[in-house]
């Protein structure tokens, strides 16, 4: 219980610890412990600083990398996209001019910003973390308050290390029971979003709790927190526990020796107090979950993989019906149709949702000794250069290559299709990423979001497959 006796949630504790100014009629001034920067959303913020003659207040709490536009082809092939080159050189110049450490193109630590933060031990419990990227929610898996911001806000944090924020509400997501075989943390989050819709968490911060969450590894927790934003919540968090501390211990930026002991002691006070209340709550029974898949053009349009595509006529309001009709039209799917057995063209294993070592290991364990079907182009994009190196050290890359998959360099790649890795118009992909918006993976491309296991099962058979039929 907190010092003043009133039970608090994890979110409230971190919030209270970071409020610097709280004046009536103004949003709170919130102190930011870690600011992650990438090449796409930051250039205009640095321009703003220059125009106003300002410095970066705390370069030692700021770190940059490049991920969104970077090619995933061999580093020997020069980058041909002049716009990407310009963004990269602009980031290099900005980091240089303002003294910000950068994991640049040839750094062994380069990678998707939400993969490298935890990997380097920068992401720690109790911190406030921001980045000009909505999937900053990923870092909440460590019991941090982490959320995406826009470019004006990036400029604010660079200049002052603070942000103006209206205090969000809290939303408890209780996942009870244990996940059945073949069902993973990706299925938990896709299930949540399909229930509450993509605006369901607007104005709230999720806290994921319950037995099923406790038994997940850090990487699995990151997958869930990552997609909090797809449920409309800017942040999602998990109370830190021994799993969290074990993950952080020994990483380059983790505290050491006595500082480590002190940090862990403090982190143990962070979890939500008994009796603390949330503004909203939902309970999910993990025992009843199945692999999930999306059928539409937003992440809320998801279903159990054994269910039929819903019929717009079953929906209450005209606008709901029209929205679903438009989505099914774009996806070229019929109401009532099963997605099982539907042939697809591309399988994408990657993105800040599912490109960590455990994702690749799990995918490789299912693919081992098998082949990617002839009609499938499978692309495997590790989340960071470190993940890539570790996977190669374990021989995982060979499993993918021997199966006929394309093993790439680290980056955002086909998750956002800025770097040339993209779907052709009309192509279908099963993707482990987080967004199935129209054109997200390439103009005219059609995305089914699913777990890495479902993705690999689909790659092997060439059609959307319930992975449970392939497990013994």
């Amino acid at each position, binding site marked *: 219980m907190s010092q003043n006796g009133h039970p608090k949630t994890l979110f409230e504790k971190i919030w209270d610890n970071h409020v*610097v100014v709280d004046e009536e009629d103004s949003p709170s001034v919130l102190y930011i412990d870690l600011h992650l920067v990438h090449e796409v959303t930051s250039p205009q913020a640095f321009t703003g600083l220059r125009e106003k003659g300002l410095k970066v207040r705390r370069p030692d709490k700021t770190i940059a990398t490049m991920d969104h536009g970077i090619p995933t082809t061999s580093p020997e092939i020069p980058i041909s996209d002049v*716009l990407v080159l310009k963004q990269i050189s602009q980031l290099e110049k900005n980091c240089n001019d303002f003294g910000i450490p950068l994991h640049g193109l040839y750094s062994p630590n380069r990678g998707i910003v939400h993969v490298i933060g935890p990997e380097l031990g920068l992401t720690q419990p109790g911190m406030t973390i921001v980045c000009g990227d909505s999937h900053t929610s990923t870092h909440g898996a460590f019991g941090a308050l982490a959320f*995406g911001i826009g470019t004006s806000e990036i400029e604010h944090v660079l200049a*002052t290390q603070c942000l103006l924020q209206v205090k969000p509400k809290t939303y408890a997501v209780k996942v009870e029971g244990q996940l059945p075989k073949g069902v993973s943390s990706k299925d938990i989050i896709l299930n949540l979003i399909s229930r509450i819709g993509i605006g369901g968490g607007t104005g709230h911060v999720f806290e994921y709790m319950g037995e099923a969450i406790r038994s997940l590894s850090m990487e699995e927790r990151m997958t869930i927190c990552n997609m909090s934003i797809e449920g409309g919540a800017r942040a999602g968090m998990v109370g830190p526990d021994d799993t969290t501390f074990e993950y952080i211990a020994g990483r380059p930026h983790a505290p050491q020796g006595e500082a480590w002991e002190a940090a862990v002691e403090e982190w143990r006070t962070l979890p939500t107090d008994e009796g603390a209340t949330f503004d909203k709550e939902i309970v999910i029974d993990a025992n009843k979950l199945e692999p999930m898949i999306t059928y539409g053009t937003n992440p809320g349009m998801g279903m159990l993989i054994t269910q039929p595509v819903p019929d717009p006529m079953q929906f209450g309001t005209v606008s709901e019906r029209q929205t679903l009709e438009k989505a099914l039209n774009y996806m070229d799917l019929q109401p009532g149709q099963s997605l099982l057995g539907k042939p697809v063209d591309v399988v994408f294993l990657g993105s800040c949702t599912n490109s960590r070592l455990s994702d690749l290991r799990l995918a490789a364990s299912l693919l081992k000794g098998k082949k990617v079907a002839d009609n499938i182009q499978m692309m495997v994009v590790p989340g960071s250069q470190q993940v890539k190196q570790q996977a190669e050290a374990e021989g995982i890359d060979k499993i993918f290559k021997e199966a006929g998959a394309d093993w790439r360099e680290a980056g955002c790649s086909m998750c956002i299709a800025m770097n040339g890795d993209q779907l052709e118009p009309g192509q279908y992909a099963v993707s482990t990423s987080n*967004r199935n918006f129209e*054109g997200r993976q390439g*103009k005219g491309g059609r995305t089914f979001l699913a777990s890495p296991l479902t993705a690999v099962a689909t790659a092997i058979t060439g059609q959307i497959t319930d992975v449970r039929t392939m497990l013994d």
Partner: protein
Amino acid sequence: MEQFTTLTAKMVSIPTENIDTDQIIPARFLKVTDKNGLGENLFFDWRYHADGSHKEDFILNTEQGRQAKILVAGDNFGCGSSREHAPWAIMGYGFQAVISTSFADIFRNNSLKLGLLPVIVDEETHYQLMSLIEEEPDTEIIIDLADQTLQLPDGRKVKFPIDNFSKNCILNGVDQLGYLHQHASKVEAHEAVNPHRVNTLAGSST
């Protein structure tokens, strides 16, 4: 920050719900280092054919679209990414306000910082505005920020919510950064009592 006090203008509607930032401005147009010219790419994939020619029936390609300063859109507008390129593109096209039944958090925050006014109305008012646009496309409505009201042609005034801080910044066209700078000493005091846990510069040899 654009100043906004009152606006009397025509509207257009894009009634689709959950319009995400990838529709507002597709990711391939984010490879820029300034904010200019994005209006051309607003709703690109809905607005242009594969060969780059205009889809003449898309509302933003019509005279009505070009004259409008207010966009009325479906529920949960601006969901998806944090890209500020979305409100930059909307303003670049010429809109000064967006009306919907709800907005995604980050989009709303970004817009408020730029002076693009996100106006939240109830479903009934939303429906009424949609019908108005369809039946009398030249109708103008009045948005009064000081008053926090929308005035419909029948004289009815509808209140909309906005926090006082953002409202005052937008009414006066002042950047929110100024407020943060005023509190520099409190920030220093906070830093003095809170341990310095990570130092990104430590061991940064790469």
